[in-house]
């Protein structure tokens, strides 16, 4: 077996040195009737070529985003990632190292984390950021738990503009922890009255902007109302690129900013692995979940970096830890950090502007298309389109025409009575031809639908 270096002779020599006759002698503590006498009746080892053929065949049965006009978003976005990013994250020293428990020989990873934390803090407009969470949804659930610890209250209010998977994730954890959570009904028009619902019983208000339906939300009045009642404002961002163009949640008064970092540096990967962003105010540092990298110096006075404040964490505090998280999304954070370093502030703003421009161009074309209506008053690179009939069926028919047209809201909210809503995202990868193809296919489908 190509990954196992020992030869049969070496195995025999080692057994002799150990003093057991067979390798099963090493499993003597396992219950006799549970120890398998022979390999399970499953396929035997295969050559690299065979495995490659088998998996490539499976891969070919999927429609890759890059092969079609692609407008799917809803919390995961297709962007172009520079080739150098994927090259660098495959450096053995990044790819095949562990969590930096021995800082003297992990300065590479640690300095990257320090730079990543700085990037995330600056991008979100917050004072501190951690070294990453699993993804945006779990980061949101953790932010709610943190707000409970900070405020010593146990009730969260969640906007109807929050990504439904995020809301469900938060509800699951909240129910299990026996906390209270109020999920407001889906709010496609961003008309919900949150301020009227903020009171002293709440630990936090969770608001997403751009929200699930693409609307931008001004957090400032919410932040003010929250502050007056001792409630923490948790701002959620599922499209990190939007922060290049939109006022940061920190500048608008958020207390905790969580987000999905996938769209910078990371591919779609069918939903994972992704990258949870988590940033907050310095005064809440000791209630923050996850790893933190801090600057220090070595015995010779040279600058260096270490994991720090680990007395918050499970391996030290056990049942009193701020979170049970251990492994996070280190390599995804590296990809994010490299891509953002290549972009810089200038490139990030330009890329965000291109995304917005492409979405505006598509919206303008759709506004001239009879039978559909764009619901948004504001948006970044994604918006909600109201169609006649079932958006899910429309998406299927568009897929048959070779266009991945977006996400039907009913896929995530099957019981909300929003079956005619379609989320459409448009990024820098969409060409003028892609948009023309989308609109033409849509027009044809609508006219066919009208005739039926």
């Amino acid at each position, binding site marked *: *077996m190509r990954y196992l270096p*020992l030869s049969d002779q070496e195995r025999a020599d*080692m057994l002799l040195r150990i003093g*057991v006759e067979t*390798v099963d002698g090493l499993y003597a503590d396992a*219950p006799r009737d549970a*120890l398998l006498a022979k*390999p399970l009746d*499953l396929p*035997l080892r295969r050559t690299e070529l065979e*495995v490659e053929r088998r998996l490539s065949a*499976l*891969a070919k049965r*999927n429609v*890759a985003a890059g092969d079609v006009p*692609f407008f799917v978003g809803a919390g995961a976005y297709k962007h172009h990632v520079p080739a150098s990013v*994927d090259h*660098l*994250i*495959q450096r053995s*020293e990044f790819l*095949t*190292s*562990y*969590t930096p428990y021995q*800082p*003297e020989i992990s300065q590479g990873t640690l300095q990257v984390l320090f*730079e990543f*934390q700085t990037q995330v*803090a*600056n991008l979100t407009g917050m004072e501190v950021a951690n070294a990453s969470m699993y*993804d945006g949804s*779990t980061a949101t659930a953790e932010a709610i738990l943190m707000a409970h610890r900070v405020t010593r209250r146990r009730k969260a209010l969640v906007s109807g503009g929050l990504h439904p*998977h995020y809301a469900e994730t938060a509800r*699951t954890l909240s129910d299990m922890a*026996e906390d209270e959570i109020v999920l407001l009904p889906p709010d496609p028009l961003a008309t919900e009255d949150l301020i009227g619902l903020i009171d002293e019983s709440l630990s936090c208000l969770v608001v997403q*902007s751009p929200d699930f339906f693409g609307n931008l939300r001004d957090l400032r009045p919410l932040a003010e109302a929250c502050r007056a009642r001792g409630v923490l404002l948790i701002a959620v961002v599922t499209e990190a690129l939007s922060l*290049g163009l939109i006022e940061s949640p920190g500048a608008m008064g958020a207390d905790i900013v969580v987000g999905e970092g996938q769209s910078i540096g990371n591919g779609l*990967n*069918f939903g*994972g692995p992704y990258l949870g962003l988590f940033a907050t105010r310095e005064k809440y540092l000791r209630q923050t979940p996850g790893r933190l*990298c801090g600057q220090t110096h*070595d*015995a010779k006075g040279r600058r260096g970096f*270490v994991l720090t404040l680990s007395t918050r964490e499970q391996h030290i505090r*056990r049942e009193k830890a701020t979170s049970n998280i251990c*492994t*996070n999304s*280190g390599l*995804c954070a590296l990809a994010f950090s490299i891509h*953002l*370093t290549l972009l*810089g502030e*200038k490139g990030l703003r330009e*890329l965000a502007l*291109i995304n917005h*421009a492409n979405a505006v161009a598509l919206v303008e074309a759709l506004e001239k298309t009879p039978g559909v209506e764009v619901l948004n008053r*504001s948006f970044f690179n994604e918006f909600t389109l109201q169609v006649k009939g079932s958006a899910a069926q429309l998406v*299927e028919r568009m897929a048959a025409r070779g266009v991945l047209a977006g*996400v039907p809201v009913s896929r995530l909210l099957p019981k909300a009575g929003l079956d005619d809503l379609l989320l459409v995202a448009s990024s820098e990868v969409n060409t003028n031809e892609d948009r023309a193809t989308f609109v033409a296919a849509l027009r044809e489908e609508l006219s066919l639908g009208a005739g039926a």
Partner: protein
Amino acid sequence: MNKEGRPTQPQGATPHAPKTFTGARALQIHEALTFETGRNDYTGVDLDPPAPFTSRLGGLERKSEIGLPGLSEPEAMRHYVRLSQKNYAIDMGPYPLGSCTMKHNPRLNEKMARLPGFADIHPLQPVSTVQGALALMEELADWLLQLTNMSAVALTPKAGAHGEMCGMMAIKAAIAARGEAATRKVVLAPESAHGTNPATAAALGFSVRGVPAGPDGLVDTQAVAAALGPDVAAIMLTNPNTCGLFERDIVEIARLVHEAGAYFYCDGANFNAIVGKVRPGDLGVDAMHINLHKTFSTPHGGGGPGAGPVVLSEKLAAFAPVPFLRRDGEALTLVEETDGADSFGRMAAFHGQMGMFVRALAYILSHGADGLARASEDAVLAANYVRVCLNDLFSAPFGDRICMHEVLFDDRWLKDTGVSTLDFAKAMIDEGIHPMTIYFPLVVHGAMLIEPTESESLVSLSLFIATLRDLALRALRGEKERFLGAPYYAPRSRLDETGAARKPVLRWTPPKPAED
């Protein structure tokens, strides 16, 4: 013409290594932060500006500067390559972190995960356009079920600790369905458990009751029996345990737990020792997470991403989270809503760590049933070989006994040497070897937990053993300075962790302008 040319033999050595102008030492090059070298008005990505258009941002345009320096591609390559060279990695040498399982990461797996049909598909595309991806998930799920002899598998958990959360949520849901949510509020966990176990239980509103280990390093069955009662929801037990030992009485413990109406959560962090040899389902386990990034070799990436699918027994299968796969003839679908069924709900967006699933399946198919069992055996063989080659010098906390995939020593043998476990570990760094896991498990004083894995050749194992023996003899001979100042040759000497925690500096801030 100069016939001598350049000198081809070393000529005279400097008595002391000189201090360099740059602070570099040849291949060890100082690397500044991007924030110190980059420019906010520079970008290393060429983008075409859009034609003029009317913004629809609703007046929420960003006004202030963000503070993100940009680098050109050549600068960025150097920055990250130089940083990478300050990291140790499995691809450089032994990385015997006990419990962490630093085995070889096959590059075929990386190549497969990057196929556009896996890497460039969206989780919410129509399921008709991702049948190959769903088939891959089904195939991986099937392998995991066969290797564990369990009834159901939840693929969504994003790492081991998230998997623990998943399994314990299923248990909590099952208990609630029995109408015992108010009474069963205690989770038993041995003192040797990973910190994630008690942290998980506490996060779900359970209180944690410790179970002591016996003098043999195994969970004391009598103590478990005594701790069980009508208030107990579950026991969380690692097997093989964190001392590297197979819990000999595990079947009896499972029986006692079930008899008391509780569930058996197995922390599967050490499943890599028994894959293809013992199936957890045959031991009475009700739920177990599998760290794909340990057992099935998906890379650790300097701290993630991981993946922690959870296998469930028949009793818990109905409570598994959404989404899950359903096969309808030729077609596969995803069940994404609970629809009033027993499922405890959703625990993350989308469908799990697909990138890790591809890598894990590539690993599994490459090994096959025969290779998987062989990998487990080789891992156990290597750990025992290290054990017998070191146990005349190092002290074993539970006597001279066979271990599984990792061997545990304590620090009694260092008594009176003035050298601590930490000092010993730092001296290993100078020898070009990553230290073992130290000070874990907590039940052992000055623990050194060595997991060589199946990836080490005998040549490499022999050098590892010889190195540790040499260091041990030096420690015992009183050569303290070799240890106390170590590491001498790493990119940094020991770092001030206390100072870092006392006054946390967690981000770069611009230097204050110098006063005139």
